[in-house]
């Protein structure tokens, strides 16, 4: 109950501030029609085959738009935003926060959001190697065979947030402060429970799987990541599902999506957006997108909802 209220409280204030600042991007009517497009992708999940899977996506867009499209992968959020901002890349597949940043800073249009199993949001998870301390029930295996407690096996947040005050004083693995699931939402959830980042010992990591690994190896007691990053680590360490137990899920994080540079005419922005939507509707498109990001579909971006990440970031003093 308490956690629900606190969470919706956060949501409420987030939407309030988001609507005040909701950024829809700009367009440049004077811009000439592009002769080629660059698509920048930031991997947010298990994208082992990302590089290969980008090719069909690029060629599908290319055939729909009638100009060459090139896919470029960058692991760096800032690089992707700067590229779109300076019209070096015209299309970006970005996490929610970076979509807002690109819009605020450079007027890039947040065009589409991804859907996974029909959802346009996902939960961030907290996990531990010390379930006795954080679980109020016995951990049980979920559909993927890995252990969950406090009702987190569904993957729908929020869940188990009552337990999170116990992280006070613990070592916590967390990602770069620009990561929605690896930092912003978990930290915001802690703050809502009166625990600040200063109350824990942060162990900084750079990727969701590294966070899991830190907990698995005992460098941290608790870690943050998207749901459920343990599958990545399982390849090297098969027992990760038993040693590391998920005990809490935050509020739902808006899914990543597609931004289009503001230095393009509105017609072309629409053209690009529709091409992508169209492709995501075809079986081929679904297959490719699933391979890239487990995306099962696309929908026009909900600007208000996207703003929630930025709002959450602001609520913990970032941005």
């Amino acid at each position, binding site marked *: 109950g308490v956690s629900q209220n606190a969470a919706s409280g956060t949501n409420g204030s987030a939407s309030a501030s988001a609507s005040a600042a909701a950024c829809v991007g700009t367009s440049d009517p004077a811009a000439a029609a592009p002769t080629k497009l*660059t698509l920048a992708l930031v991997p947010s999940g298990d994208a082992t085959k*990302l590089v290969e899977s980008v090719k069909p996506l690029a060629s599908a867009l290319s055939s729909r738009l009638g100009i060459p499209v090139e896919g470029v992968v*960058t692991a760096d959020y800032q*690089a992707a935003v700067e*590229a779109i901002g*300076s019209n*070096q890349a015209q299309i970006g597949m970005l996490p929610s926060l970076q979509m807002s940043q690109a819009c605020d800073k450079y007027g890039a249009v947040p065009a589409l959001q991804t859907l996974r199993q029909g959802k346009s949001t996902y939960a961030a998870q907290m996990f531990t190697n010390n379930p006795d301390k954080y679980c109020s029930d016995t951990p049980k295996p979920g559909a993927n065979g890995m252990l969950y407690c406090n009702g987190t096996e569904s993957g729908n947040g929020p869940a188990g947030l009552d337990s999170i005050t116990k992280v006070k004083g613990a070592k916590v693995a967390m990602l770069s402060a620009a990561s929605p699931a690896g930092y912003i939402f978990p930290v915001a959830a802690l703050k809502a429970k009166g625990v600040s980042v200063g109350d824990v010992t942060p162990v900084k990591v750079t990727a969701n799987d590294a966070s899991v690994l830190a907990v698995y190896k005992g460098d941290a007691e608790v870690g943050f990541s998207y749901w459920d990053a343990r599958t990545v680590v399982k390849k*090297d360490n098969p027992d990760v599902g038993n040693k590391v137990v998920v005990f809490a899920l935050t509020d739902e994080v808006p899914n990543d999506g597609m931004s289009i540079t503001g230095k393009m005419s509105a017609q072309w922005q629409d053209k690009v957006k529709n091409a992508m939507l169209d492709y995501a509707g075809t079986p081929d498109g679904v297959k490719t997108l699933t391979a890239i990001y487990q995306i099962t579909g696309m929908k026009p971006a909900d600007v208000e909802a996207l703003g929630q990440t930025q709002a959450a970031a602001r609520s913990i003093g970032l941005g």
Partner: protein
Amino acid sequence: MSATAGSVRPVRPANWGQRAAWWLVSLIVVAAFWSVRIKWSALLDFPGQSAKYLRALFVPPAWHKAGEAFSSMILSVQMAWFGTVLGIVVSFPLSFLAARPLAPLGVRLPLRGLFAIIRAVPEVVTAILILSVTGLTPFTGALALAIGSIGTLGKWGYEAFEAAESGPLEAIRTSGGGMVALLRWGVWPSSAPEVLSFWLYRFEINVRASAILGLIGAGGIGKMLQDNVQFRNWDVVGMLLLVVIIVTMAIDQISGAVRVRLVSGRWELPLVRRLASGGAPRRKGLSPEATPPG
């Protein structure tokens, strides 16, 4: 007179300054060890863990990725070469202007400041600035490496020029030579081998540094490394390591041979170098201070 002075035994001088310096350094090191937050016990299973990861990396490496790894390494080498050449072209004249006897303070200081600033800015930051101009391409990577090279080559260059033998400089002045003559015949011949070997050394550094640029999408071996390390495809990382090692060592051998050739005028590969045949001692090769880049 000095016959008596020479026969008085001196007392051993206590070198307080030196002793204090040693104490200070030791203190700093001890303080660093004592204060840093590290779980030293992690070192205990370091051997076991290393063995495990070595196995994951190399038993066996992902041979099927060899081709792709090799071609991205080539791209990295191209990036490094172009960056180095560009860096040389820009830094060479600048470091003449930053050397003490050759330029006034008003030119020297700003240039030295520029070199120091470049060296202080992380490659990633430089690359991101450039990226807004040239996009997510290897060209961006090469430009970032070029700028980084200007910082180090500029500094090494002016240090080498300042260390040029003063004798020939004086001879040129006394025979009525001007500025161009001083640079061409006084400074350049005595610093050339050192400067050339700095260029090669910087090229090697750039090959390695290009790995970092992979993080921001400049391409090359760095990108492949990044992708595969993130997702713990250790066998591919192992393959990449092999390629990196083979290519860098090959470059090292070639540049080593070039360097020996420049300094001593003969060709030899460092790894297969033979000892000079016995007997007479080898005397004075490079001057002791010639080698280190500052």
